[in-house]
């Protein structure tokens, strides 16, 4: 299977490492044969490392690949996925699936019409702590779910140039780009969402240097989810927490509290004080790699995968409703989309 990655930023590079580790156990190794990048310079290091060829446009790469792995900024997903689907390629797409529900629906329709997979890279489903909690809920360890609290906090995304994360029209801002992870997770464990109500700091304070979102989801089964997202903490903070309360038990997770390593180093080898270090929580396989491996097996053997195109679309629908609610101050009722399969 020949793979081409569109976009060579942090996510494209991370997926490339996943593809390098995929295969084996009776499956042939996938080949990363192409990279689509705006400039040869930005793709140079990854091309050298992987041996993949650099293409200026997706159209030029399409004849050479079986799988297109879309790792571009969010607002470009729609165009890339439609092109790949029209060429009959299998597709992996970074989250959020699209910047709008309209675009996401077109993408799902196009992939179904073309008979190709559209696998959405909601990597949180592959993080061991989230996967384990999902399994515990699925095994009925804590009974019927009542209230979920999901929290994801960091600093404002930084990029040396072209910081599209901060461009609302491209990324959707905090309510979409950051918090979509937890909308998807909430829906994965507590089911479809009926009502979305959201508030966001930047709605009231457009000039604020931080941003923070609070979203209340009402699930169709009556469970409630509280989703908090922060771009408000000092770098290099990255903290995730969750609490899942059922009528027969409670699950808690806090990335700070469970980090097995804390570096309290006074001076590094050069004798200078290091930047503040993050507590580290290493696992033997990166969740991004676990994800690519599962996608690869799904594509090779047609086995079901833990995330579908429907899930990617449903998460975009929640995110768009959250943006709408934060702007209007009113709750948003979600309509049933025909593309979201049960």
């Amino acid at each position, binding site marked *: 299977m020949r793979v081409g990655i569109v976009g060579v930023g942090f996510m494209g590079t991370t997926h490339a490492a996943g593809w390098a580790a995929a295969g084996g156990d009776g499956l042939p190794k996938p080949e990363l044969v192409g990279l689509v990048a705006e400039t040869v310079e930005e793709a140079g290091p990854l091309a050298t490392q992987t041996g993949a060829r650099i293409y200026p446009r997706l159209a030029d790469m399409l004849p050479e690949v079986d799988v297109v792995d879309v790792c571009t900024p969010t607002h470009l997903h729609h165009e890339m996925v439609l092109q790949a689907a029209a060429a009959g390629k299998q597709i992996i797409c970074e989250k959020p699936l699209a910047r709008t529900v309209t675009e996401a629906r077109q993408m799902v329709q196009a992939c179904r019409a073309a008979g190709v997979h559209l696998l959405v890279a909601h990597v949180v489903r592959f993080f061991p702590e989230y996967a384990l909690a999902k399994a515990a809920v699925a095994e009925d360890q804590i009974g*019927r*779910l*009542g*209230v979920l*609290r999901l*929290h994801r*906090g960091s600093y404002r995304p930084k990029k040396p140039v072209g910081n599209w994360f901060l461009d609302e029209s491209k990324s959707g801002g905090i309510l979409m780009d950051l918090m979509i992870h937890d909308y998807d997770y909430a829906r994965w464990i507590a089911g479809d969402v009926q*009502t979305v*109500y959201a*508030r966001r*700091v930047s709605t*009231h*304070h457009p000039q*604020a*240097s*931080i941003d*923070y979102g*609070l979203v*209340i989801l*009402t699930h169709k089964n*009556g*469970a*409630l989810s*509280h989703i*908090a997202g*922060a771009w*408000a*903490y*000092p770098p290099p903070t990255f903290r995730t927490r969750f609490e899942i*309360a*059922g*009528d027969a*038990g*409670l699950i808690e997770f806090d990335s700070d509290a469970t980090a097995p390593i804390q570096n309290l180093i006074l001076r590094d080898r050069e004798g200078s004080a290091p930047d503040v270090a993050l507590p580290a929580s290493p696992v033997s396989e990166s969740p991004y790699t676990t994800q690519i491996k599962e996608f690869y097996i799904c594509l090779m053997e047609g086995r079901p995968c833990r995330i579908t195109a429907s899930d990617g679309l449903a998460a975009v629908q929640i995110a768009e409703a959250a943006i709408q609610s934060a702007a209007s*101050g*009113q*709750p948003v009722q979600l309509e049933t989309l025909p593309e979201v399969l049960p």
Partner: protein
Amino acid sequence: MNPQLPAKTRIGILSFAHHHGEAYIHNLRSLPQVDLIGVADDDLARGQRIANLHGAVFFPSYEELLAARPDGVVICTENSRHRPLVELAAAAGVNILCEKPLATTLEDAQVMVEVCDRHGVLLMTAFPMRFSAPLKIVKASLDAGEFGQVYCFNATNQGELPTKHRKWFVDPELAGGGAFMDHTVHLVDIIRWFLDKEVTEVYAQANHIFHAAEVEVETGGLEMVTFQGGVFASIDCSWCRPPYWPTWGGLTFEMVTERGAVVVDAFRQNLVVYRQSWQRAAWSYWGSDSNQAMIEEFIQAIREQRPPLVTGVDGLRAVEATLAAYRSAHSGLPVTIR
């Protein structure tokens, strides 16, 4: 100290319907300037039992306790039964510390504030978190401008099902509701105090999933409360803590400001204790007792004849926001207060 002040401030406790009443006996007795003149309870057996247990004088009726001319009383009836005792004590010219929530209807709360004003007696609402050592530090830093402008709060006041203390906590009539009524007022009051702003709007969603077979009232709830100036605060008031959790529940908030965030866990000061007889970890609280500081403030306000730091109006405003949460949960829409 003002030499004209009486040596001892005479205090009585009216009812032990609320389990805090027993703790207040200890809080009052630890103050040298207080004379706990006695207790009364319309549940005579309960009142007599608790009086005996603590060696306190038992008055057979509220009227007889009030006739003994206390300077102040602490009212610990069920939530919906605060009003008649507040009216009785105010008419007797006695200062009042009333358990929270102040009332279960806006009309009751308003009447209670008015009647105390009319009789010139102090009405204090029992909001101990105003006296929490960690919260006072954060409030002082906020007032000193250390955090800059406040944008929002992400807050929780979660607990276990409170029936292990008293059955009436889940009685719709006596408690006035469930998790909303029990756990909204503290955080609304804390944020009003922090910001010096009133609530303008409340959005709320409730459910009935925890303990569904045991109680009728709502046991899960999420609220979004907006304050004057646009600061918004989510409050999780759920009774989601199982009885085998390490403690009763807690009160936490993240305050997000222009300079980042402050994360506060008011009841974090615990030992983790593992005992063979418990077969689970439990948290043993060693932080300062906010109830003690609250009782002291009530006594000092009486002795100095000044308004207490937290008043009946504060109790009224918190009730108003709680009732708005019920209306919002019912309609599914945000409710505007002012």
